[in-house]
Every structure is written in C-alpha cells, then in structure tokens.
C-alpha cells in the first residue's frame, strides 16, 4: 500500500460513458493483484475525496495500470477531461482481492461481470488463464447493449468462451446474466464463480451458485472515504461470521455466504 503519483499514458473513450485510463505507476502495478482496487485523485481537480476503481489489469513490465471507468458524476467527469502526460495520484493496491486458493483443484471458474463491474474481472481472467491454460475461465458478460461489447476485446485471450447478455437484446442473449447462468452451468463443469456487478445482479447469481454448492465470491462496492479501514464508511455485518467487515480492507471480495442469504 502506497501513494504514487503517476503520469497518464492513455485516457480513451470506449463507449458513450465508459473510459479507459492507463497510468504509469510502476510500484503499485508491481504489487496489485486481481480484485484489488486503487483510489485516485486529480490534485488539480475540484473533488475532495479520492475515487475508488478496481484494477482492471496491470503490465508489470511497463509499470502500467489499467482502469476502466464509467463517467458517473463530478469526479469521473473530471477524470475524463485529463490528457495523457498529466499527473494523477494513485493510492493502492487496496483490499485483499480475489482468493484463488480453491482453484488449486484445477477445476474451471466462471467469471461474471455486470456493467463496469467487468473491469476487475479482466485481470482475474488473465490470472486464471495464465495459471491454468488448459481450463481458461468462462465469462458471462452482462451489459446493457451492443455498444458495450468493447469488453470482449479485453477478455478474448483469457477466456474459453464469452457468453453475452444485453438488456435490450442488441447482442447475445436478451436479458440479464441470471437468465443465461443455468445454461452455462449445464454446458461447463464450473466449480468456482466470481462476480462483480450491481448488488441486485450479484444477489440472484450468488443465490443460484450457493444453491448448487458452487464456491462463489462476490466483489462489493460502497461509498468509501478512506479505502484503508479507518473511516468505517463501508462496513457491513457478515451473515455467517457475524463479524463487522470493512469492504475496503477486508474485501472488496467476500464469500457469497457472508453477503447474501442462502
């Protein structure tokens, strides 16, 4: 965990409201693991708190970190206005990230991403593909419409198959990720599921996974001030453990049982 001021290498448009930012932050890139996140701040901007974003990928050789973000409010609007060579302060890597220990069984993982929740799954997919090239992860991609298909470019190389659902039916299966899940589970022998997306989406998916006895991890989001476990803005009570978890420090990834009713 450190704060590193990095130069913006790219700040590109992926769709009407989604951008990709590549930042040169070699120390953080060297440490960041899939599922961890960073908090960024434009020191010349008009926002006060840092903004949390999942680590979408890193290139340790070139010291680069990839973020993919939706322009949602003031802070992300200001981020979108930055130009390459300008500086940005990055704090990270934060949180514990995904656990991959269960994957030592060699069985296949299903990754599910919804909306910008796909971002951290890119790095997770690459990690899994590199660790077990024989059984690359299957990816269930829940997006709004075909103009968000850009995610496929990032995922292609690291996945066995990408199953797409769109809300409006402009690509893949019309509907939500949950609608496609049973068929995916029938087709592949899935032992692990990792999900990042809106809570409502994760809830349905995680319940189905738990019902089928599949090991399932979900990545949570909550408004964060500190990102390091001191402000207590992001806590919740674990369902099984009864412990008060800090999403930023103890997560953002948790076993599904800790979060959703079985």
């Amino acid at each position, binding site marked *: *965990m*450190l704060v590193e001021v990095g130069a913006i290498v790219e700040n590109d448009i992926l769709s009407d409201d989604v951008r990709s930012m590549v930042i040169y932050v070699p120390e953080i890139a060297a440490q960041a693991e899939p599922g961890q996140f960073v908090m960024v701040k434009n020191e010349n901007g008009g926002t006060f708190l840092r903004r949390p974003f999942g680590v979408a990928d890193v290139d340790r050789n070139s010291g680069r970190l990839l973020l993919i973000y939706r322009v949602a409010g003031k802070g992300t609007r200001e981020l979108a206005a930055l130009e390459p060579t300008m500086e940005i302060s990055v704090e990270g890597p934060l949180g514990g990230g995904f656990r991959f220990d269960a994957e030592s069984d060699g069985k296949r993982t299903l990754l599910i991403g919804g909306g910008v929740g796909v971002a951290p799954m890119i790095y997770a997919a690459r990690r899994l593909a590199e660790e077990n090239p024989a059984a690359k992860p299957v990816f269930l991609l829940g997006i709004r419409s075909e103009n968000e298909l850009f995610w496929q470019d990032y995922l292609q190389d690291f996945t066995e198959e990408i199953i797409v659902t769109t809300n409006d039916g402009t690509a893949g299966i019309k509907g939500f990720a949950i609608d496609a899940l049973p068929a995916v589970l029938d087709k592949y022998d899935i032992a692990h599921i990792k999900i990042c997306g809106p809570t409502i989406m994760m809830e349905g998916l995680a319940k189905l996974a738990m019902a089928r006895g599949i090991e399932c991890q979900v990545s949570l989001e909550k408004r*964060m*001030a*500190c990102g*390091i476990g*001191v*402000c*207590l803005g992001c806590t919740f009570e674990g369902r099984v453990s009864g412990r*008060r978890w800090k999403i930023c420090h103890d997560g953002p990834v948790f076993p599904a049982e800790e979060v959703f009713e079985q």
Partner: protein
Amino acid sequence: MNFARLATDFAGIKMKTPVMGASGTFGFGIEYKDFLALDRVGAIISKGLTPLPRAGNEGVRIAETPGGMLNCIGLENPGIDSFLAEILPRVREQVGDTAFIANFSAGTVEDYGMMAAKLDVDGVDGVEVNISCPNVREGGIVFGTDPKAAAAVTEAVRKNTGKPVIVKLSPNVTDIAVMAKAVEEAGADAIALINTLTGMVIDTKSWRPLLGNVTGGLSGPAVKPIAVRMVWQAANAVRIPVLGLGGIASGEDAVEFLLAGASAVAVGAENFVHPDAVERVAEDIDAYLEARGLTHVSQLVGKVKIG
C-alpha cells in the same frame, strides 16, 4: 523534522510534534503504518469509544460535498472493554512512545464517568471527551450544545481520571466562548474544536436523504474558516490550551490555527485523501518555522495580529 522545534506539551500530554490524527479519521493509528512513521505523529486520537460495542448507522454513511464530506458513521466501535483488552495492547506495541489519546462518549453523565475511570490505565496518555457527535444520541451532542450539561459531563470525567482531560466541543452553537468557559470551569485541562457541523444532502433522484441517518457531520477544507474563527474566539475566552482542527490539509492551514490560538492541531478528513498528512503537516510546520528563523512552534500560538 527538527523535533526540538516541534515538541509540544499539550495539557500535560508529551508529543513529538503538535500534529495529531483526529478521532474517527485515524483509526487507532496503526492502520497508517504503511504511509507514515508512527513515531513522527504528535498523538493518535482514537476512534470514538462507547460503553458497549456499536454497529453504527445503517445505509450510506459517506457523502462528498463541495470542499468536504459528510459522515454519519454513528460511532461504530468495538466498545470500551474490547478496546482495552485487544486493541490498546496492540497499539502500544506498535507506536512506541507516541502519545495515545482515547476519545469517547456516552449517553449519560454517569457513563461518561465510568468510561473515564476505565480509561485511566497505562498506555492511555489522555482522554478526549466527545460531547459533540451529531450522529447518534449517545454521541453527546445534547451535552455539547448546553453549557450546564457540558459542565456536568466534564466534572464526571474529571473526578474519574488522573489523565489530562480534553473536552471536544461542537461548532453547532451560537456562542462557542460560552461552551469553552463552561468546560474550563468544570475542570477540563484543554478543549478541542471543532467537531463536525450538522449537514444534509438530499438525493434528487430518490427524494430521500442521501445519508442513512438523514443528517451527517460536515468536515474537511470547507469548514476551515468556521473552525479558525471558533478557535480564535475560544482561545480568547479560556486560559486552558486549545486543540484546533477542522479542515486542516497543509502546514499553512495548521499555522493558521496556531496563530488563532491553538496550542496543537489535529488532521481529520484529509487523512483519507493523503494518508501521510499528519506527518507532512508537521514537516511543513517545521519548514515554516525554519524559514522564519523561529526556534519553537509555541512562538506561533495565538500570535495573530488584530488591528
């Protein structure tokens, strides 16, 4: 950092620098060890402790506002007993001789006294009595807006501890000098101000308050001018030392508080943005003293020139 220039005895609490981490924004100090040297921190002020463990408020607890933030954490904390048994020993192990101040509040005058007695142990260098948390009934704000009630709490704490007693005042009052004098007379060794100002944000999509607890406490740079004014007014009203805070983000900000009359300062919300802030602010104060040929930070205290 020239510690000879910065060393501060604040109401009997020995600190290597005059810059503390403010309650609720600095955890128990040890969470910051990756970002700064804990032995270069003036004092760690703990998250607010309460008689029993508290889960805090439901719903959204954090909202950014222009130049600052609102919070309605609701004093989530493990409770005094668990703090004493599990956290304090770990803190003392890791922070060396850095001063540790326990912040606490309670729902009754008696419980304030009880908390003070329990905290009168080795490893705690002083207590900060929170009578100003706007987010929970047990946060004491009912005591913090009435001089008589504030005095009663102060007396109860005073009677039950040999530690230096800092009383943390609420800025949500008409006349801060009245509150400051009331707790001074009741035996406080120092006052701290400001706690947060009560604020509210409404989500224009849902028509609901954004925060789970409807209102929250405003802090950060946005409140700094109010805090400096109140520190100046309070310092002119009492003889006991003042701990100044509210929006400090830089050494220059801290110097403003010192000039206004604070004998020491604390960094709050800025810790979230720059987790090395407590150390950096002390360094910047040091550089400020150096540049002006001053030999000790106390040479700034209360030196604002009026008229």
